[in-house]
């Protein structure tokens, strides 16, 4: 690590890795993500065990609205792509480009959360509350935990927008932005698993 840090002085190492503490923070965040993977794995395992335990309530087949789920998927994938472009702009040291793409990331994420909230509300309105069956409890908890993560990410992104305006790009704000991008891509991957294991599997079983 030390060698790469020294190389950083000559500009070959990205800004966010340029000081030791920044690199350490990024390592720490990877560790957090590792642990979050375990959290979601447990929720996936619970969902997988509970998928058939509908207790007379709606089955996955009867419950899910596939249109909204697909739209949510597209929104989140696009948001993740925008986030990638944001980091690309960060590497180019363009404050404006970074800010703009971060805003796009946020807007798409906001659309995802709004659609998911609407989807949940329509399920509840049709009487499918999570009290009704173990399956519904597991569904709302797994997907809702992801939704809460995304919502927290939006708050985070908003604060980053303010920080970028206030401080511009420096080692600290670059590191924060990079860590946020890790988080955002991670949530995207989790969603891909949710879409496959929840919505698609619900379609075929």
């Amino acid at each position: 690590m030390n060698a790469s840090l020294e190389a950083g002085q000559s500009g070959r190492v990205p800004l966010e890795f340029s000081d030791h503490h920044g690199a350490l923070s990024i390592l720490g965040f990877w560790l957090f993500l590792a642990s979050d993977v375990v959290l979601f794995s447990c929720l996936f395992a619970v969902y997988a065990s509970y998928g058939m335990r509908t207790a007379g309530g709606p089955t996955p087949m009867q419950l899910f609205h596939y249109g909204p789920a697909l739209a949510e998927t597209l929104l989140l994938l696009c948001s993740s792509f925008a986030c990638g472009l944001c980091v690309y702009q960060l590497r180019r040291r363009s404050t404006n480009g970074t800010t703009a793409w971060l805003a796009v990331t946020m807007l798409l994420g906001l659309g995802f959360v709004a659609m998911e909230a609407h989807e949940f509300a329509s399920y509840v309105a049709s009487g499918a509350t999570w009290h009704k069956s173990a399956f519904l409890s597991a569904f709302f908890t797994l997907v809702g935990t992801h939704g809460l993560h995304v919502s927290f990410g939006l708050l985070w992104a908003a604060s980053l927008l303010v920080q970028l305006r206030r401080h511009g790009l420096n080692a600290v704000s670059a590191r924060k932005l990079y860590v946020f991008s890790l988080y955002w891509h991670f949530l995207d991957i989790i969603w891909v698993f949710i879409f496959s294991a929840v919505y698609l599997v619900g379609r075929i079983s």
Partner: protein
Amino acid sequence: MSLLGQLFPSSVLRPMELGSDGLIVLTVAGLLFVLTRYRKWGWLWREWITTVDHKKIGVMYLVASLVMLFRGGVDALLLRTQLAAPNSTFLGPEHYDEIFTTHGTIMVFFMAMPLMFALYNAVIPLMIGARDVAFPRLNAISFWVFAFAAILFNISFVIGGSPDAGWTAYAPLTELTFNPGVGENYYLLALLISGIGTLASGINFVATILGMRARGMTLMRMPLFVWSALVSSALILFAFPALTVALGLTMLDRLFGSSFFTIAHGGMPMMYVNLFWIWGHPEVYLLVLPAFGIFSEVVATFSRKRLFGYASMVGSLLAITLLSFGVWVHHFFTMGAGAAVNAFFGVSTMLIAIPTGVKIFNWIMTMWGGRVRMTVAMLWQMAFIPVFVLGGATGVLLAVVPGDYQFHNSYFMVAHFHTMLIGGVVFGFLSGLYYWWPKMFGYMLDERQGRWAFWLYFIGFWVTFVPQYLLGLEGMTRRMYTYSAGFGWTTLNQISTLGAFIMGAGFLVLVFNIVYSMLHGERDLTGDPWDGRTLEWSLPSPAPEYNFACLPTVAERDTWWEAKREGGAVAARLRAGDIGPIVMPKPTAVPFFIGLGFFVAGAGMVFSWWVVAAVGFAGVLALLVAGWFDYRDHEELSRDVVLRAEAAAGRVQA
């Protein structure tokens, strides 16, 4: 239910609880008086509440842990008193159930875990030649979140009622249908909140050990305690989320009406048991591995000899870590998993005996050819070996699946896990405490009193738990609040109770030892009272706030031992030219208030006061967001200050 009825149900108005109320009020009033009378509020705020210094955080963990050991120990004595006679009416069944629940929960989460973090904080950065942990603020947040969670858990018995479903809290007994009070809410919220702090500590120490080691300290040159802290912190990362899910889903069931572990609506109580033990087994290893690390340090230092078989010690740590995730079903062989699953998990459990056996032999071989000094730290290490071998042997018997069908949840099993947790974890941490005490506080613990504490505790341990093994063979199952005389269990229970009180006496002597030594103990002026081998002993006791004026360079294992051999008494001296300014993390009150916010949120959720809960969570969130905008969390200690401090300690070459 009226507010008063909710806060003070009949279970908190029993004489024992009211008496505790009185003691708590008196203690708090006394503390407030002393702080005010001696004008210590500013000192408390500046030096402790807002500190981000890992050494001070370690001390706070230690204090909290000893207080919790007292509470958990009193619980144990109450349980043993109740069981000393058949058909005893000393405690009613409700009372007994509450006390065994709090005993287990406190000992695991609020005694053992913080004691582990106390030692990590006290010495890990020193051992790897670092100035602090990777994330000092996060470290303070971890502590305050833990501390407020512990307070939340502990007030349950005087406000609202204690949890009473055992520390394992198996569903569906914890569901509202069977357990309508707020006690289980306390259990769930306190553990969920303290889990946040634990996870943050896990991340912090993995990042610290991977990213902040001194130049030249490769992984295979790290002291064994650092290795054990690394794997144990990694275990936290991969195990604690399972507990969070198990407890979180139970909480959703109780507070928000979901149907995870209910009997109705397709809920599956056994899912809880799986999730709990997927966390639970790694949990016991993440407690005992640091103890293994301590033993490795202590045995090498007090045998004046290199640790035997370093590579296989590291390898067996890693092997135990990996295996620990593959054995959880052995906690419920008797839940109908089927022969194939049971056989698999039985054998995987036995496999753990292999790396553990290797470690035991290596410790003995470390003494072989050395010069064994019988200090108190070493006594705890030596006591550990026979106790842990006994625990391991009975553990193998429990892993024999057909045998487990007869031992499961009996006192044989109770005795087994107390053997492991006391003989392994408590002996280990006490060994570490006596060993590193001078480094933490600058004075030695009195060895003579330490021996008294040791012998009382050690003898008490055998007298307590050997009868419990036998009671298991007599068919006594755990968590029975009483038994009738006809079973023939009376004598063994009486002996066991006697042993528990001997252990209690040992604890009192330990506390006396600490207080006495604080006042009269021998100061450690050398910084290296044991003739140590690792970097922490190259520093003065206690270490200065910046730890190392110059970051050391490491060329081999036992680096301080080697340096002393080559450099003699001047090995610690620095060149003035090498000293420069040092960047230090700034003190902050944010961690304290984050802990407080979680406390408010937790209390609100316990009583379903949603406004209070929302205020608490909003406070936490606001503090977090405010922290994101704080770009100046460090300050610089000038070269002059450092140089003066080092020169005053006589550590600068002329």
